[in-house]
């Protein structure tokens, strides 16, 4: 007969094994693997073929080849009339340009430049290169590029470019570039284009717009975005400019819609008059150090972050969501807002100036706005819808194509995991029409009745349709 001790030991062993079993027991977990889906370009109108492609290959030749093949897949014309080419900052732009020119047998007009180091997007997806900007060292080997090819009998394109160092001023260089673009389209300078697409390098955007407007006037919409950094470059016809401008002109009888806006909440009471500036830096607001005033508007958040975190990029990311803006009001009461991204001129906060990427003049009133990454993301997703609305185009109409310029600063506020939704959002609003967009370090756009402006934390989007 089993002794009491043996019985107890057996009982404990059984319970111990049970506990061990339950402790080690692995639970089955649901693992979802996404099905592969293929997005193909939709031909909206006869006589116009639009394709998009992208690549994240490190080798520039292979990347261009992959993107071009994707864009031209199923297309009748293998040599497009026009190509928009954006590559993430840090890419070998010369190789990209010459590979594309070679593939297109020098017969395609190429416009474009660098996008932000993080990504470029098309209707076919978010071509991610890096997660964060400003960290060039971590960009090594991580590249992305996107291309849009257009062949059309109804839309005429011309491209032009100029290096700033080749001309006495940025304005002059820009004048030459836009003039060349019009000529490249086979038009005379009197024949104004329906729209101008512009990609200048960083820091002289206002001068570029001035130069363009000298040729096409203030009533021709100029939509574009500053090249993305941290290294900048634009494509010329046979050259890559690190300081220059690349632009394209569009001639067509099709309907166009565009939008140039920020999408921030304007219902913030903080406002002041800029009383002293130094280039792109605001030195004083209401005759007080600009940083003091701005930090007051933010409840001392800049000082707190500077003390506690001390990283300038963290402060910049916060300030992206609290830009300042200027108002432009027409006689009919319609108001446009032009945003600027401010940040402390000095990371140690000793210099009390606030830097922007725009040239705000002394005497201009500035206002504080506020945004969240959610509202900004929605705004990006709605760009085609608003562009249609601005162009008087019904929301249900599928455009032939769309071209977008999205602020890289805004992109930076959107969590990494959410960024890949952007193409889907735009596709839905754009009725799945082909589009291409780059992430820019400054945006240019047209305020009807006011003229073309340069700002920050904005997005501009142009779409073309054969219908109203």
């Amino acid at each position, binding site marked *: 007969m089993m002794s009491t001790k043996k019985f107890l030991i057996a009982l404990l062993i059984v319970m111990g094994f049970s506990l061990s079993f*339950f*402790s080690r027991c692995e639970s*089955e977990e649901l693992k979802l693997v996404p099905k592969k889906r293929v997005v193909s370009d939709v031909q909206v109108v006869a006589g116009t073929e639009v394709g998009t492609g992208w690549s994240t290959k490190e080798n520039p030749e292979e990347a261009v080849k992959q993107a071009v093949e994707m864009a031209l897949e199923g297309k009748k014309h293998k040599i497009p009339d026009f190509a928009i080419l954006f590559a993430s900052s840090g890419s070998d732009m010369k190789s990209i340009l010459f590979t594309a020119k070679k593939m297109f047998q020098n017969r395609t007009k190429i416009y474009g430049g660098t996008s932000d180091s993080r990504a470029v997007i098309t209707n076919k997806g978010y071509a991610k290169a890096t997660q964060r900007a400003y960290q060039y060292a971590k960009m090594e080997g991580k590249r992305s590029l996107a291309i849009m090819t257009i062949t059309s009998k109804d839309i005429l394109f011309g491209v032009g470019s100029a290096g700033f160092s080749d001309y006495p001023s940025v304005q002059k260089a820009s004048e030459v570039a836009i003039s060349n673009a019009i000529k490249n389209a086979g038009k005379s300078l009197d024949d104004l284009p329906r729209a101008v697409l512009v990609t200048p390098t960083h820091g002289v955007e206002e001068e570029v717009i001035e130069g363009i407007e000298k040729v096409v006037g203030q009533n021709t919409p100029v939509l574009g975005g500053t090249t993305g950094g941290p290294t900048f470059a634009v494509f010329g016809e046979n050259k890559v400019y690190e300081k220059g401008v690349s632009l394209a002109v569009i001639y067509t009888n099709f309907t166009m819609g565009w939008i140039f806006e920020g999408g921030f909440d304007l219902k913030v009471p903080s406002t002041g008059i800029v009383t002293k500036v130094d280039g792109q830096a605001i030195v004083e607001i209401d005759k007080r150090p600009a940083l003091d005033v701005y930090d007051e508007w933010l409840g001392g958040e800049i000082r707190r972050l500077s003390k506690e975190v001390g990283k300038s990029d963290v402060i910049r990311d916060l300030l992206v969501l609290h830009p300042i803006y200027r108002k432009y009001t027409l006689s009919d009461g319609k108001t446009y807002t032009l945003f600027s991204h401010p940040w402390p001129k000095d990371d140690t906060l000793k210099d009390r100036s606030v830097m922007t990427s725009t040239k705000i003049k002394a005497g201009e009133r500035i206002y504080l706005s506020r945004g969240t990454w959610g509202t900004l993301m929605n705004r990006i*997703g709605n760009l085609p819808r608003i562009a249609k609305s601005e162009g008087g185009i019904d929301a249900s109409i599928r455009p032939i194509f769309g071209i977008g310029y999205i602020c890289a600063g805004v992109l930076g506020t959107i*969590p990494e995991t959410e960024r890949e939704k952007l193409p889907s959002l735009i596709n839905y609003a754009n009725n799945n029409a082909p589009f291409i967009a780059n992430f820019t370090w400054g945006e240019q756009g047209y305020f009807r009745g006011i003229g073309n402006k340069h700002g920050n934390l904005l997005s501009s989007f142009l779409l073309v349709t054969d219908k109203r």
Partner: protein
Amino acid sequence: MKLFQKTFVSVLIPFVVVISFVSYFVSIKQISDAERNVIEEHRTISRFLSKEIEVGYFELKWPFENLKQLSQHEGFLFWWIVRDDGTIHLADNATFIGTHTKDYFPDITSGEETEAVFLNRKQNYGIFVHLLEIGNVKWAFWHGCSMIEVSNRKKEIIFLTSILSLSALVIFGSVLYFAMKHFTKPIKQLSVSAAMIGKWDFTNRVEVKSRDELGELADSFNKMAVELEKTGDELVAAKEYTDNIVNSMMNSLIVVSPEGKIQYVNPVTCSLLGYEKNEIVGQHIGIIFEEEEEEEEEEPFKGSGLANLIKKGVVNNLEKTYLSKDGRKIPVLFSMSIMREKDNTPQPPLLDITPPSPPLILRGGREGLRGSEEVLPGKIQGIVCVAQNITERKRAEEAQKKLIHELEDALSQVKQLKGLLPICMYCKKIRKDENYWQAVESYITEHSEAIFSHGVCPECEKKYIHSQLEELDRRGKS
């Protein structure tokens, strides 16, 4: 099983059963509550976000921030905004956008219900499907959540409940163990002491200091041990005396059980029969008797002989024959008596008193005295059998018989030579019948075992031999 074990196990097992049941039901309740809490939590989140999505749809603002928070929520698997055709319009993971819900969950459809919950306990997930009220389109918000939390909580609950149960069991078991040890220790001591008394060791005493019934019992036991110790020597001496008597007996002593099994034999029996004691004890009594063709009345353990034994209680001096181990036949004078218990209560017969036939106690029958017991006071313990070896006596009797026979024969012979013998007064011939005369030597030889040898006595030698020799000499000389 010992008293301690019996008591310990009989208390512990119900405790284990009760603890197990309580643990089981508590665990089930807690697991059910945990699952319900998780479902309710996710259902609330889903409802809230569904409303936000509905509002956002019209304002062209998806609630990305709240959806992002959802995706960071513990147990989150996915959220999808699904079009009426099942295409995923938006998803937390953009790679799912544009694919179809049927690719992942073919059995789940949005249906007509405003809110539906699909649980898969095998794969530990739940899916909440909310129809979105956004005009004419029938979009739905899918929210998948992992039930791993429930599964883990389940394991945690089972683990904790088991630990608690185990702890309770160990604590209770330990308390019970020591309590039982404490209470059964005097009983064990009593048992040990009783066993020692059984071995005639009366020196041991039970040390119980309690004043309860066990203490009283221990006191009584100790007093009994003292008394037994006093009488122990007397008992030993008495036993030795009895043993000496039995061992010194010149006759064979066999004690037979009521079933006919040999229970005891004395040394004389063993030496007489040639068996070792352990060879013969336990065997049936029939093993030592020679089978004989006798009348039942003469059989001691059979028929009327057995009945007679039971009736009289004693049967004396039956001449029987033992059969030794090596087959020798040993005549014995066999006596037996019934040995009864001291109980005076009359015992009813166990069976019919009719003697069994033919299986009998001596022939290997198994009925024995059981079937023949009469209503007599005291239960039969056995039959005491005493046998005297009468081999020598038998042998002497045989010799005596033979001698008598020879004498009788001789006497018959002597009688023939008696009476009047007509003898010739000259030739000494005896007349045998009317006209036949027979020389006396041949007659005696014929009628006795005497044989004559012829010789010459000195007188006749002188008278006849010498005279003849002288005659011959004379003739020779002549």
